[in-house]
């Protein structure tokens, strides 16, 4: 090397050396800043993303029928969720995620927003009850969006499918109005009962969620558990329902629209309550698809979402005649022996009111009039009564109030009065005497719920005891699997005159068991069933030929209400079959089947427990056929 160059090169290399050590020193400063000065800040961040507190959802209590057969069960299910702290913020991510899961992007964004605002609590459930395809989809999507996680949580299974859809209801995610109403009680993302007994019995059924502190990896998978407070499952409870009788009701009503109610006369327990067409609560278990199901079912012409026994308002038809007779006897307008002539029709206030039997029933006493369901006899009673008398009697015997059953959204039976008309028809507030004549045979403005009517017939069966229908039977002792009976709501006494009662009872007996009774075809040999048929007009027709040509939706509703056995009544029942024609031919045979099963077949042939679709992602499952 050129010796003149050497010192120059060395000096320059010395600068390099200083720069190099300066570089090392600079990096040391950077790391000292991160690791010493800001250590605690980063330590917290590292812990926050690795250590998570997760709620452990508590299983809801099971629902059993009165014999301990399961109506609602829990299964383990897999849900695709986003934990609270992992909620995505960017719109592109949310949109892409929604698309890959075929969800509505706007709805998902809104949901994520509300979850973020609500702070701590349950994770956001994107897809519930994953089946094998759902799991495959979830895993695929999770590879792209690592903030998703799959969680095991209990889900509801309604074993009877449509058997008791309206009674049991279904569960869903708590909605905003409910949370606003009771902010301390409900938390975002919580599962609560939405309909039926799941809703009214929610506080009894719901458990207490637990929580756990876990270590998670970057995919949110649990790596270690630092300790947990176990969830306390909700208590299982018994309903007064008898699954076997319920099934008989379901099968007897078949495809018809209508309602069946059977009450236990000892305490008012509901033994069967079926609303046709029914729905399958299992369909409502997917949170984000629930709106669609709701909309579909609500728009269906047969209105399957209406729980007809407590929400259907029907003209009671001739089943109402018992109340008119009761009002007339109590008022002393007629005696049981009073004879009234039926010529097939009678003129009141310038208008002809026809009897069902066009040739006329001839001379009738009260028992005969009830047995043969003579309209003219009851037109006559109504003409001698004031509408407010009928209303007062109905009020006295509890027909104007809600029955108080432990189900949500029960409708009130409508018994017209002058005050009612002023309020309901402000354009024409005057009550016309002619309207009372129609009310005399359970037409016109009268509208009852099947359960309200059943309660009235239960009152007749018990000689004046006003029961409160109820479904809650008791809690299950989870150790011994036995029933801890809950006290039934106490009955009220209505001071029904036993002499008047015996006339009505006699009339109801003759309807089924008398030689001219309208429902004599439905009499049972071994047990004395009593009751009253009813045929409620939906529209007015010129004559029978005209009627038979009409569309089914305009045909009369068939009713049958009664109790059994006559000697020592145990059950009261109401059957309503919509647009089915005569009560005697359509409704009474269903009642007969109920009584037949309850008293004669049940001890010999109890029906098997309800078996619904069992969706269990942990069990191998046959592939469902594509629709």
């Amino acid at each position: 090397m050129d010796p003149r160059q050497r010192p120059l090169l060395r000096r320059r290399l010395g600068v390099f050396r200083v720069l190099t050590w300066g570089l090392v020193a600079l990096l040391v400063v950077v790391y000292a800043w991160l690791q010493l000065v800001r250590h605690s800040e980063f330590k917290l961040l590292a812990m926050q993303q690795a250590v998570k507190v997760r709620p452990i959802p508590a299983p809801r209590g099971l629902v059993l029928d009165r014999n301990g057969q399961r109506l609602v069960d829990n299964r383990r299910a897999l849900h695709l969720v986003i934990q609270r702290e992992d909620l995505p913020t960017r719109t592109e991510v949310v949109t892409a995620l929604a698309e890959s899961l075929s969800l509505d992007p706007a709805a998902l964004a809104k949901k994520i927003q509300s979850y973020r605002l609500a702070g701590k609590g349950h994770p956001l459930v994107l897809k519930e009850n994953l089946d094998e395809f759902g799991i495959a989809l979830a895993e695929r999507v999770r590879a792209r969006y690592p903030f998703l996680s799959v969680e095991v949580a209990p889900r509801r299974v309604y074993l009877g499918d449509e058997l008791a859809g309206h009674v049991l209801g279904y569960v869903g995610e708590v909605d905003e109005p409910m949370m606003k109403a009771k902010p301390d009680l409900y938390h975002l993302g919580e599962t609560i009962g939405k309909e039926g007994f799941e809703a009214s019995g929610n506080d009894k059924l719901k458990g207490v969620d637990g929580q756990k502190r876990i270590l998670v990896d970057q995919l949110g998978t649990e790596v270690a558990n630092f300790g947990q407070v176990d969830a306390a499952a909700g208590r299982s409870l018994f309903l007064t329902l008898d699954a076997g009788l319920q099934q008989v009701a379901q099968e007897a009503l078949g495809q018809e629209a209508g309602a069946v109610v059977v009450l236990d006369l000892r305490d008012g327990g509901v033994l069967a309550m079926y609303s046709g067409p029914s729905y399958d609560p299992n369909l409502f278990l997917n949170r984000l698809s629930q709106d669609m199901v709701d909309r579909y079912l609500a728009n269906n012409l047969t209105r399957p979402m209406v729980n007809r026994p407590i929400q259907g308002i029907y003209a009671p038809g001739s089943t109402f005649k018992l109340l008119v007779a009761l009002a007339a006897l109590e008022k002393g307008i007629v005696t049981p022996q009073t004879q009234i002539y039926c010529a097939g029709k009678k003129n009141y206030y310038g208008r002809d009111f026809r009897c069902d039997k066009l040739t006329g029933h001839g001379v009738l006493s009260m028992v005969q009039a009830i047995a043969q369901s003579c309209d003219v006899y009851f037109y006559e009673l109504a003409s001698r009564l004031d509408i407010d008398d009928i209303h007062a009697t109905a009020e006295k015997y509890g027909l104007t109030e809600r029955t108080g059953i432990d189900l949500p959204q029960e409708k009130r039976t409508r018994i017209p009065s002058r005050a009612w008309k002023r309020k309901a028809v402000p354009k024409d507030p005057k009550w016309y005497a002619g309207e009372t004549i129609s009310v005399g045979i359970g037409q016109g403005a009268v509208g009852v719920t099947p359960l309200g009517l059943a309660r009235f017939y239960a009152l007749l069966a018990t000689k004046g005891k006003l029961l409160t229908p109820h479904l809650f039977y008791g809690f299950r002792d989870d150790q011994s699997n036995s029933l801890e009976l809950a006290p039934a709501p106490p009955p009220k006494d209505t001071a029904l005159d036993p002499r008047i009662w015996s006339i009505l009872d006699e009339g109801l007996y003759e309807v089924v068991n008398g030689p001219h009774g309208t429902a004599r075809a439905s009499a049972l040999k071994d047990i004395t069933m009593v009751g009253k048929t009813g045929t409620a007009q939906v529209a007015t027709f010129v004559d029978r030929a005209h009627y038979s040509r009409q569309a089914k939706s305009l045909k009369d509703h068939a009713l049958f209400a009664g109790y059994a056995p006559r000697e020592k009544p145990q059950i009261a029942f109401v059957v309503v079959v919509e647009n089915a024609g005569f009560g005697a031919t359509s409704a009474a045979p269903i009642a007969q089947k109920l009584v037949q099963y309850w008293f004669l077949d049940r001890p010999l042939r109890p029906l098997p427990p309800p078996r619904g679709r069992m969706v269990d992602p942990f069990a191998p499952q046959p592939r469902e056929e594509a629709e």
Partner: protein
Amino acid sequence: MKERFRALDPRLLWVLLALIALGTLTLYSAGRNTAQSGIWLKQSLWNLMGMFLMLLLATTDPRRIFRYSFPAYLLGLVALVAVLVVGRKIGGATRWFVVAGQTFQPSELMKWVTLLYLSHRLGSRPPDTVGRLELVGAVGLVVFPMLLIQRQPDLGMALSFLPILLIIPLMKGLRARWVVALLLLVGVGGFGAWKFALKPYQKQRVLIFLDPSSDLQGKGYQVNQSRIAIGSGGLIGKGFTSGSQTQLNFLPVKTTDFAFSVWAEERGFLGVLLALGLFGLLLNRILDAARAAHTNAQAYFCAGAAGIFSLHLLVNVGMVAGALPNKGMVLPFFSAGGSSTLSFFLALGLIMGILHHSRVK
């Protein structure tokens, strides 16, 4: 044989072995319980192979190696063109040849070949006989392979060629106007690159570097997690194989770009001091070699090598701490990878040879 081992400079060798030990431990911990659990073993094979090559070069007369620098440079250019045509595309970039299941990145070696050729070209004559035009030509010789590499695209790799240009101030000195000119060049070049040359993802990296919190779920995620790993390590670290960020996979690409974060998390600031100290000693010894070198070319090569190692150190260690943009530049002896490891060892082999022969003569 014993003679041959004497060619290995002990002061460089110990530092090197210590760094390899640190790197292997890091890779063992980073690969634990993942699909890459054997990566430390694989990297150890590369290291062994590299040390063998290092031994070979150290025992060779450096002047013989410099003599082959021009053909090597031409071969390197051919390889860079070839990789664009027949290379394997991985993650959107065409950087690799695939030979017998192993990927090989020609640009890694080309960096050192370019340095070798430039040192040879500029160092074979007295500095004052080298004209300006020739200097411009030398810059062109560096920039040309850089442009080819940016076609792949691989900005980090392309930038790692820049320290080669340190040869010029080393031979000509640095005047104030040169510094100003350089700053201007960087400014204009940076603007031009932003406007015309940078790919969108590269621009995004720069933007996210300027504000890492703008994209915690996306691109900023990696650096953010790395900073959490480093910061949470504290003074003494969380312990070997006990770093939560590393072991729970919050830390991304932890066997390559972010390997140093693993070390920082589990061994803490003291571990970082140790590693940076070792790197400092390594650079120091390389500069010793430059000082001791017999010829200008050898001195230039060593100085350039120190520059390249420094840049890797600065960019990788700075990047994982969030102090520099997220640029894919590996950290020697920590980041797993065959081509880069072999290249580093080859360079060190040549440097050892230079040291050895300066003593022998």
